[in-house]
């Protein structure tokens, strides 16, 4: 870290701080500017990628079938890159700076390098978008060789990854500085710990990306003769799937953060929540195998060990958070006085606060839709039923859209007042935004899963197969599901557009909070402002959480066995 200190010596160029009047947190102005820049970039790419997603869904709605085939494949490629990579990773870099510099009250390490990182990411993201729109890089997000994209497609991704890696380095540097300068006492907060998990996974992820994309870039220039398609898949998914695990660690941190900000939630026990994050670091990187269960070459042993994240120990991490997050919320609400029955704490939760509503919907849908479907899809034999059907996008829209994106949107309702220092405009509309987006996101996930179960292929322009050499009919139920998926996508887009309008409107015209003493449209819990009370929660009874988790567990077990039953009815294979 000496290099970082040398380029930005605290003594020579002192960091400037302000104190947040809502939370009492010390905010480094340099960090604040960088958080703003990364968040703005994130929202721009969400707008572009989200619009592309709507076009994709409208094309796959059989009755609408909007785009011609060339445009469909082009837009689908752009959709994947813009939302899955650019929106989410820009937002995550903002979160990392927030969880390090702001939560620890420290200066950010090497802001100038952080700006370089930001610049690289912007240039990379634009370069890849240009390559996609030039039309000869419609290779989908996965870009499996021997299909080849233009060199600038890969180069853009590489630049973006290098920038993101630098950003992750800044996060580590800031942790070191905060520790060395004693800006906090004891251990880092749970949210920072979760962000640290995300950052460690990000290093592995981005390194995998570089290992495979650099040779692929050279191959597209003609400097490398061949890229083995299986090898590519193993290493590429070290980035492709593991980067989704960054999202999991990041959005679980966001759940804890929003719980703390809105109702003063504390972890039930620091030890359990942190161990659950630790399980992510230890086992999530095995995820490549999820994408190779239906591929030749790998042994069944390799597939089973890897796809189960070594005996489901990483899934265990998520299952633990599935109890500790609602448990922390229930404990806090009971302490806030909502003690009647099993569910008064939930009924009287701040449902009118979009941050809370978005967080809770994200928690429920990530678990019930994204989580359960992920485990089922990642079961060695069950994968045969759904591999590369539209069930797969159904699953990951449950994790990345209903889970991560909704959680990040929810977090935005505090990033805007606390970092941009602008109060949310149109609070009444903002109240509805998470419900609208959540309903749509949940809908697209479930309907795509339904269609996939019926065999509808993913990334497919014409499921009527009328112009094909051997036409045949895919199940009509699948067509119905794709229509409902289109409807749900329209609802999700309405929620997405509302989010963009509120965010942009607030940044430009929101009431300024840095002067005067105006209250927030969506107030923080009083505990959020007092650092005096923190740590684990004292022992409490949590009947509501126990019921919720039991319902979840029963659904999981039931759905798991339904799929085995379905598998046992197909042709025999060995």
């Amino acid at each position, binding site marked *: 870290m000496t290099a970082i200190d040398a380029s930005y010596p605290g003594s020579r160029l002192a960091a400037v701080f302000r104190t947040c009047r809502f939370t009492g947190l010390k905010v480094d102005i340099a960090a604040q500017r960088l958080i703003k820049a990364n968040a703005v970039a994130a929202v721009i790419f969400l707008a572009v990628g989200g619009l592309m997603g709507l076009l994709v869904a409208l094309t796959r709605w059989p009755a609408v079938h909007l785009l011609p085939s*060339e445009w469909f494949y082009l837009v689908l490629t752009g959709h994947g890159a813009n939302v899955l990579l650019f929106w989410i990773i820009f937002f995550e870099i903002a979160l990392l700076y927030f969880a390090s510099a702001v*939560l620890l009250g420290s200066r950010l390490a090497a802001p100038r390098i952080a700006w370089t990182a930001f610049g690289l990411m912007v240039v990379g993201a634009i370069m890849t978008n240009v390559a996609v729109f030039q039309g000869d890089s*419609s*290779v989908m997000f996965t870009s*499996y060789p*021997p*299909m080849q994209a233009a060199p600038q497609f890969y180069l853009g991704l590489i630049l973006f990854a290098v920038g993101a890696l630098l950003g992750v380095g800044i996060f580590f540097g800031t942790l070191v500085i905060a520790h060395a300068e004693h800006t906090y006492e*004891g*251990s*880092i*907060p*749970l949210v920072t710990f979760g962000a640290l998990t995300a950052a460690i996974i990000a290093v592995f992820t981005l390194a995998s990306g570089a290992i495979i994309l650099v040779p692929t870039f050279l191959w597209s220039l003609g400097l490398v003769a061949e890229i*083995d398609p299986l090898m590519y898949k193993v290493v590429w998914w070290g980035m492709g799937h593991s980067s989704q695990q960054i999202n999991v660690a990041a959005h679980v941190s966001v759940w804890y953060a929003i719980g*703390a*900000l809105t109702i003063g939630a504390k972890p*039930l*026990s*620091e*030890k*359990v929540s942190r161990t659950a994050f630790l399980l992510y670091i230890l086992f999530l990187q095995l995820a490549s195998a999820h994408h190779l269960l*239906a*591929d030749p*070459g*790998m042994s069944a042993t390799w597939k*089973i060990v890897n796809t*189960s994240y070594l*005996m*489901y120990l990483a899934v*265990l991490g998520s*299952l*633990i958070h599935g109890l*500790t997050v609602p*448990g922390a919320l229930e404990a806090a609400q009971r302490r806030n006085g909502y003690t009647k029955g099993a569910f008064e704490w939930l009924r009287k939760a701040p449902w009118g606060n979009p941050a809370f509503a978005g967080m809770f919907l994200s928690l429920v849908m990530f678990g019930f839709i994204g989580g359960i479907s992920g485990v089922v899809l990642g*079961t060695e*034999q069950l994968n045969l039923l*759904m591999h590369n*059907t539209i069930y797969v996008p159904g699953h990951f829209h449950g994790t990345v859209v209903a889970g991560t994106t909704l959680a990040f949107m929810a977090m935005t309702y505090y990033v805007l007042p606390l970092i941009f220092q602008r109060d949310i405009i149109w609070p009444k509309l903002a109240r509805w935004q998470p419900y609208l987006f959540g309903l749509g996101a949940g809908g697209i996930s479930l309907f795509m899963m339904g269609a996939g*179960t019926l*065999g509808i*292929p993913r*990334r497919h322009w014409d499921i009527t*197969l009328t112009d094909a*050499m*051997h036409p*045949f*009919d*895919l199940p009509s139920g699948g067509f119905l599901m794709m229509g409902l998926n289109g409807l749900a996508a329209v609802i999700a887009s309405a929620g997405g557009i509302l989010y963009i309008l509120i965010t942009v409107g607030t940044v430009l015209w929101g009431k300024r909070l840095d002067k005067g003493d105006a209250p927030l449209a969506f107030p923080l819990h009083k505990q*959020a402002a007092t650092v005096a009370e923190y740590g*684990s929660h004292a*022992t409490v009874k*949590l009947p509501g959480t126990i019921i919720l988790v039991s319902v979840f*567990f029963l659904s*999981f*077990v039931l759905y798991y066995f339904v799929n085995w039953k379905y598998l*046992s009815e*197909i*042709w*025999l*294979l*060995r």
Partner: protein
Amino acid sequence: MAISPPRNRLWWNEPIERVEVGWIVVAFLWGLFMFVFMIAWHFIGGQNLSTETYRVTPAAYEEKVTAFAEKYQVGEEAGGVPVVRPPAGEDVYLLARLWEWWPVLELKKGQSYRIHLSSLDWQHGFSLQPVNINISIHPGYEQIITLTPTQAGDFGIACNEYCGIGHHLMTGRIRVVE
């Protein structure tokens, strides 16, 4: 608070809530069960994807498939695609290329066939419908699965791995007779 350092600096010495311990035990055992069940299905289940795979050049594979099709051809489908009826238990070759599955296969219900799968160009996705068996097909790798149809009728093969602009045109057919 989750956003501030734990008050108890020795937080790792704090006791764990009972409800947490209970759930961790249940979740861990469930994970262990799911792990064991994948292994168990290799012994008790009838649907396991073979991992028998050989390296092959696309040209060599094309030769094998052509020889196979000529040997057992019994008819022709629209577009001149041969319909091939191999004897039961025989090695069967199916190739994927831009944008077709070739040739059309005629199999007998209840008989087992060693089906060879490979691609001549890009990656493709073998998606048998409405049975819903989905397998990834790579160029350069010849995968062999032993398949036993349990229903008679006409079955379609779609491609569910994106393979360029004609991806949605790529289909094939397997006919299963009693």
